[in-house]
């Protein structure tokens, strides 16, 4: 078969056994690879109601049809599991040479279940999986782990994905890191740690065959050209850190735990200022022409990668105004393997608790206090002192502290909010409320409607439902092909160009309608997984603060979001999805999408 290897490798760390299994074409055509295939396998391999840290919870790595074809921005892989933060689906993407090498193993999915008796890493090569002892790697950072394993295996071809101390200690928002990039959200690193699995090292040799190599090459060339034009200027010339100054002026920069949507010191932290003062070099994922990654000079002389989400979460969200402090905090998160959004989100919750007298043991932890922020991050990773509470994430920590702190725990389903103020981005507010993985800006880009001018971003209406649906289904396809979202504007008609591309890679005769339907099917299956794991209507909701306080500053001053407005948008969304009014997927929808459970 073209584009896929049509098989998966299942490794059970409890028994040490591994087995290959065929992946049937019908499943691949129905769900593609990446997030789609991962969701399908999660539904099958996770026992209903499984505890996220149970050995039975599968940790699933998937590849995708476009990986290895040389198409720009496609060197990606997905990690799917049941999230220890949300209890629902966690689906994370990352991008590096690990993605390419994973596919070169000759598989489309790697499923890890069980729990090793002591810390191990897995080395997969030459069609076999070796489980190797790794006690000596405990406590090492992902970067150190990668270097040590490559040295031990004496191979520069081997690629490694690893967890840091946060993953080992089951911090619920730990990441899986690879070459400085991360499968970041939802705590996939904690699930890996719960299996006593420190790292996965891969070295394959199987190339991906495509059905029409000339056709694929022509599209690849065209996309490469398009990726170098003005449509990607932002990513090529400044990176995602460009968002900060704009969001501040648009009144949508979450600040001091969402108490404000503007930050007085935004200019000092802006991507433009960082570029002028701290820029070190530009970098990118494997096989990528956009090269959006920016490395900045930190105070200790090291280079630190910084994205907008990290900048916002460790900067304005925590009231921190010094770029050097944000860079240092980001370094610490990378060193321990922590999701920066959830780290900043949980810390800013704690800062507010501390300032309001609810955390007497953490008096120093206050907004804008660099030392307190920098001291707290290692405590979280090591679950020491206050860190033991914060390692649980804002939802569980607030349940522990109780009282008003529940109102300012800024999460959806347990996942901390990204850097988009929902009150001044109403379509995004809906997107965040309904996202299967919790407050997420990646599995839909609902904010695009708000930033396009096609809707009034400060007002809510039921019409937003259809916009969110379209954005979610589009993201599901991108995340399953896999194509980077930063290429999205370079397509003139994504579904028809995507279908043509997929057809040339796989040899299928795929239409744009089929591709669209695949996106819808994937999204519905995510929701079905969540329903099976106990989803209730009230899980599609926003934190109390957003529904009871208006924005005090900036161009959106005075803007709020009422529960009724959110309910109206939710009804519009469920209707546009063809779900019932409580948000459950009806049987007829399954039939329509050809999903059999």
């Amino acid at each position, binding site marked *: 078969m073209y584009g896929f290897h049509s098989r998966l490798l299942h490794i059970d760390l409890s028994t040490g056994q591994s087995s290959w299994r065929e992946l049937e074409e019908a499943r691949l055509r129905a769900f593609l690879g990446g997030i789609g295939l991962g969701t399908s396998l999660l539904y099958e391999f996770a026992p209903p109601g499984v505890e996220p840290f149970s050995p039975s919870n599968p940790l699933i790595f998937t590849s995708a049809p476009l990986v290895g074809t040389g198409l720009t921005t496609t060197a990606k892989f997905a990690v799917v599991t049941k999230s220890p933060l949300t209890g629902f689906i966690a689906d994370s993407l990352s991008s590096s040479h690990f993605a390419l090498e994973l596919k070169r193993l000759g598989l489309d999915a790697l499923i890890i279940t069980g729990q090793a008796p002591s810390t191990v890493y897995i080395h997969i090569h030459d069609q076999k999986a070796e489980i190797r002892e790794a006690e000596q790697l405990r406590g090492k950072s992902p970067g150190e782990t990668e270097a040590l394993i490559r040295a031990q295996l004496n191979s520069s071809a081997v690629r490694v994905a690893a967890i840091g101390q946060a993953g080992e200690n089951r911090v619920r928002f730990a990441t899986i890191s690879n070459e400085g990039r991360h499968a970041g959200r939802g705590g996939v690193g904690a699930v890996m740690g719960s299996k006593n699995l420190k790292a996965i090292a891969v070295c394959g040799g199987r190339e991906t065959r495509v059905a029409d190599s000339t056709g694929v090459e022509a599209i690849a060339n065209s996309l490469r050209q398009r990726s170098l034009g003005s449509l990607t200027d932002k990513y090529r010339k400044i990176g995602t850190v460009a968002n900060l100054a*704009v969001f501040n*002026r648009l009144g949508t920069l979450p600040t001091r735990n969402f108490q404000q949507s503007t930050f007085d010191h935004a200019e000092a932290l802006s991507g433009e200022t960082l570029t002028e003062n701290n820029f070190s070099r530009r970098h990118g994922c494997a096989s990528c022409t956009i090269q959006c990654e920016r490395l900045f000079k930190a105070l200790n002389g090291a280079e630190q990668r910084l994205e907008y989400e990290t900048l916002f979460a460790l900067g304005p969200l925590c009231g921190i105004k010094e770029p050097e402090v944000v860079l240092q905090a980001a370094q610490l998160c990378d060193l321990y393997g922590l999701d920066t959004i959830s780290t900043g989100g949980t810390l800013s919750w704690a800062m507010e608790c501390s300032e309001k007298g609810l955390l007497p043991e953490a008096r120093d932890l206050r907004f804008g206090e660099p030392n307190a922020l920098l001291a707290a991050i290692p405590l979280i990773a090591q679950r020491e002192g206050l860190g033991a509470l914060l390692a649980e994430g804002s939802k569980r920590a607030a349940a522990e502290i109780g009282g008003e702190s529940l109102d300012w725990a800024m999460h959806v389903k347990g996942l901390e909010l990204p850097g988009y103020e929902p009150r001044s981005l109403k379509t995004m507010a809906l997107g965040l409320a309904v996202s299967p993985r919790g407050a997420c800006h990646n599995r839909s880009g609902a904010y695009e409607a708000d930033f396009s001018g096609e809707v009034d971003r400060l007002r809510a209406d039921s019409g937003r439902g259809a916009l969110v649906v379209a954005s979610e289904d589009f993201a599901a396809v991108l995340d399953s092909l896999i194509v980077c979202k930063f290429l999205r504007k370079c397509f003139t008609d994504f579904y028809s160009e995507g279908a043509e591309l997929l057809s040339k890679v796989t040899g299928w005769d795929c239409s744009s309608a089929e591709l669209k339907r695949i996106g819808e099917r994937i999204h519905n299956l995510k929701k079905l997984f969540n329903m099976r794991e106990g989803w209730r209507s009230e899980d599609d909701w926003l934190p109390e603060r957003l529904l009871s306080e208006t924005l005090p500053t900036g161009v959106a001053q005075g803007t709020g979001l009422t529960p009724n407005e959110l309910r109206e948008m939710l009804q519009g969304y469920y209707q546009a999805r063809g779900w019932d009014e409580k948000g459950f997927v009806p049987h007829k929808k399954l039939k329509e999408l050809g999903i059999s459970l």
Partner: protein
Amino acid sequence: MIVEPARNNASAVILAGGKSSRMGRPKALLPFDNQPLIVHIVRALKSMFAEAVVVAAPDQELPPVPATVVRDEVPYQGPVGGIYYGIKAAEGDFCFVTSCDVAFTNLSLISYLISHISNYDVVVPYWQERFQPLHAVYRRSVLPLLKGQLERGELRPIFLYDKVRTRKVQEDEIRRLDPEGLSFMNMNTPEDYKEALKRWERMRPSLTCTVELFGAARLLAKTKEVSLPLPQEATLSHVLSALAEQVPVLVGRVINRDRGSLVSGYTCNINGLDFVRAPSARIHSGDKIFILSADAGG
């Protein structure tokens, strides 16, 4: 001031040597915008061209003007003579040629004309069923043909157009940038002059807005903010055109070469509230215009 690198090889030529018989006094010296008309025109063009050449009659009186002044070798040979002497004296590979009796210089239209010269020898507007040879772009390579015309006494420029690669710019193209055709409103009589003065008063800058630049645009411009004087009833197109003049490095990278719209990948927001891309969007005094990536988020 050079507008953008692509136009380093372009010059402006202004023909000033007409007889002004119907006007009753030399047109080049008519007061306009508190300066002689010829100075007003040269100044406007110098914001876009590195070099300006004024072609005057041998004995014609001219005020001090920031341009190279050349004299017709043979006086009153009509426009072909002026075009020929002007291009000959200019250093550019191609020249935008105009006359000294058109007060309303539309840089967006001129930019549009120039953007088409690469595959042609002449780019000439066709307005109200007439060629406009004195608002056209000529490649230096047409000089021998113009010389031949002078020798044969063919004093009408349109004789040239059949012999070379000529791009006829249609009225609908022109109207997109200059709806009323002010670029071709030359002043021949005292009434024309009076009318132009009145119109100029109406069009004088009368409101101010601030452009805030973000992301790649800010890095290019090396400034966060630009204050712009604009005419009454200004639109986004006016803003972009004025911004292009103040921050020429943005032309071709953030602002299209027509100077009235943004390149793909960029968008505008007015006062942090309304996202707009339509060039016709109205601007009011005191507005803050953000120029940012169209790909917000990510």
